[in-house]
């Protein structure tokens, strides 16, 4: 067994919630509002529904591939050669998401908080913690999530409640003025980026202690995370209006800057940024862990910890390279990333389910023939 830890159902829920919030809370509002304008909140709801359906699909996965992680399942379903190729592609997906999220971290920190600092030092600090968390195992990560959650919820509530005086309901009107098409286009990015990423949990599900409660845990996590994203987006539109939300690169940070209670509770945006750092950390660690674990399973290693440090090094070097500037990153994100995530978050699990069901039907056929 590569991983000896066990996750409780609550820890699973919490991890799903924190992953869903991930960096979506920071980067989704401009992308979705660009298409859906003031109706972006409807896009979120559509995304959440699709996310719940996807989660249901992942939970079917456990029944058909019990106690197997995603990589092991791919190898079982497709055999040695095709399975290895597909596994490598899936691992590549995890790696790219990790690098992308790390790039998000460094972009955010450099743009808003520490301008002038180059990318490698910021990411070095970040990746050291990620490596440490990965080496300690999934159970430690689950417990860390549990410890973080009250802080994240409180900071989120502070942000939302403190900004109520600056909300104006007219900014969210008129509803559906251009029909449902822009809303649907807006919901594509939010679905892919926010709600299809829990596919990474398929790597972790065998380690949940109560297997029969997995579905509930996943669904609840998705619901909670989705609610927070929905609230963040709606607050963005209510406070800034659709125009400023699209134009700002990090509208939530802008909103945190505007908090001013009684003339003394001001300039607290760094506190709110803490919340995003925590959720970003969980996301990077989860994908990093999935990559390391998957690679170890593919290469049939006895111990996955040896891979952590080299991978971390590679990631820190990769992050500045993947996109030469922000515009490039944004274009790839808006136009291509979406389909990449849909392939691995939706299509791959569906294909695996299909293969398993086909095999089952086939073996039942054979059994009945005997």
């Amino acid at each position: 067994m590569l991983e000896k830890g066990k996750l409780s159902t609550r820890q699973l829920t919490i991890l799903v919630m924190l992953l869903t919030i991930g960096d979506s809370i920071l980067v989704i509002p401009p992308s979705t509002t660009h298409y859906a304008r003031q109706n972006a909140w409807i896009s979120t709801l559509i995304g959440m529904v699709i996310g719940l359906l996807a989660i249901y699909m992942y939970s079917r996965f456990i029944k058909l591939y019990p106690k197997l992680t995603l990589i092991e399942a791919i190898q079982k379903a497709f055999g040695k050669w095709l399975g290895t190729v597909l596994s490598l592609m899936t691992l590549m997906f995890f790696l790219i998401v990790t690098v992308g999220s790390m790039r998000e971290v460094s972009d955010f920190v450099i743009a808003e908080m520490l301008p002038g600092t180059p990318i490698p030092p910021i990411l070095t600090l970040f990746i050291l913690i990620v490596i440490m968390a990965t080496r300690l195992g999934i159970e430690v990560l689950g417990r860390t999530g549990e410890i973080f959650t009250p802080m994240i919820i409180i900071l989120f509530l502070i942000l939302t409640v403190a900004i109520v005086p600056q909300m104006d309901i007219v900014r969210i009107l008129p509803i559906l003025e251009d029909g449902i098409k822009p809303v649907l286009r807006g919901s594509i990015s939010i679905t892919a980026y926010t709600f299809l990423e829990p596919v990474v949990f398929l790597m972790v599900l065998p380690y949940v202690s109560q297997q029969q409660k997995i579905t509930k845990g996943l669904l609840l996590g998705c619901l909670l995370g989705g609610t927070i994203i929905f609230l963040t987006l709606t607050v963005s539109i209510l406070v800034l209006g659709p125009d400023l939300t699209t134009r700002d690169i990090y509208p939530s940070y802008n909103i945190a800057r505007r908090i001013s209670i009684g003339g003394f509770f001001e300039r607290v945006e760094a506190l709110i940024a803490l919340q995003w750092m925590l959720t970003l950390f969980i996301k990077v660690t989860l994908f990093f862990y999935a990559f390391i674990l998957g690679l170890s399973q593919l290469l049939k290693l006895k111990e996955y910890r040896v891979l952590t440090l080299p991978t971390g090094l590679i990631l820190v070097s990769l992050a500045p390279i993947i996109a030469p500037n922000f515009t490039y990153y944004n274009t790839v994100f808006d136009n291509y990333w979406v389909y990449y995530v849909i392939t691995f978050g939706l299509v791959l699990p569906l294909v695996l389910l299909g293969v398993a069901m086909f095999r089952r039907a086939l073996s039942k056929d054979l059994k009945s023939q005997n």
Partner: protein
Amino acid sequence: MKRRALLLCVVILIQLFVTGCWSRRELNDLAIAVGIGIDKIGDQYQVSAQVVLPSQIAGSKGGSPQSPVNLYKATGNTVYEALRKITTLSPRKIYISHLRILVLGEDLAKEGISSVLDFMSRDTDTRNDYFIVVAKDTKAEDTLKILTSLEKIPAVRLFSSLETSEKQWAPTSTVTLGTLITELVSKGKNPVLTGVVINGNVDVGQTQKNVETVDSPTELKYSGLAVFKEDKLIGWLNPEESKVYNYLTNKVKSTVFYIQCPEGKKVSLDVFEAHSKIKGSMHNDNPEISIEQHIESDIGEVQCRNLDLTNPKTITELEQIANHKVVHLFETTIKKVQQEFKSDIFGFGEVIHRSNPQAWKKLKDNWDQTFVNLPVSVKTDIKIRQLGKVTNSFLEEMK
């Protein structure tokens, strides 16, 4: 043992990173600008920064009396360039996170303000908590030179007095960058900015003399609102008309206005709540606006001799007189803005956008033309509630 040594090395190395020292800005390397003024000279931008001198603000035992602020100005091809050029004059780099007021020169405003606003919205140091005003009949840099009493830092005085006058007297309007940009972009509303004037001589105003006498020779004063069409300044509203703007945009928290009692003298009403409901509708492809203004007020001052405030009929009469006056004021102001300025500053376009989005799609491209002949009906509902401390005025008895 070897592992421990390695760990120790790593821990020491990490300390180089966690202190956040990479791009540090020490406090005594920063010149904290509280006010920025932007003027246009030819096709160059002149940026003036009012910088706080901390030694003069903190502690009362200053050596020689110095001004609490310094003004640095520089000219450049763009605002960003000019701001950096100031380092040739100032010993420190200008830090604008604590900005309280941004003054735009009148010449710049007439040419168009949008070119300078992008820098303010893009720079990571800027926030959304300062106000933007236009200098009237003067240059922006001059407005930052005047020393003020009661509030040592003039820019802070500009900020507080704009905020207070909006809350208490309502002919001024606080405008932040976010609001301004949203209104500039919106096709259904044009922006307004408050105008600041200098009463008196600028040269006297920048010396200590200005705060030494009881009656300051030079003062900064807010006048009416500047009306913009797209991003260009096209005219000014007087204080009465500015109040109408504030009523219609629901910015009035408290104000005072007078009405005439039947005998011709004046009664002051103290407004403590004002709320306007603007409804848009389409009649045969023609937009229409109806305004309902609710005002709650108290009697503040009575100069009439024959006013019996204990009689409910008098109160109703006064309310009617107030209604007539306010309706008349609203209608004349709206007409003036429609016909003279042809710029929809009240946001009627946005009202139509929200109530009839399909119709708005056709109207939005020439809204400013449609606005000129837009039928606007005004209804007011003014209520007089309290009388203050006394009932009838003693003037009644003074026969």
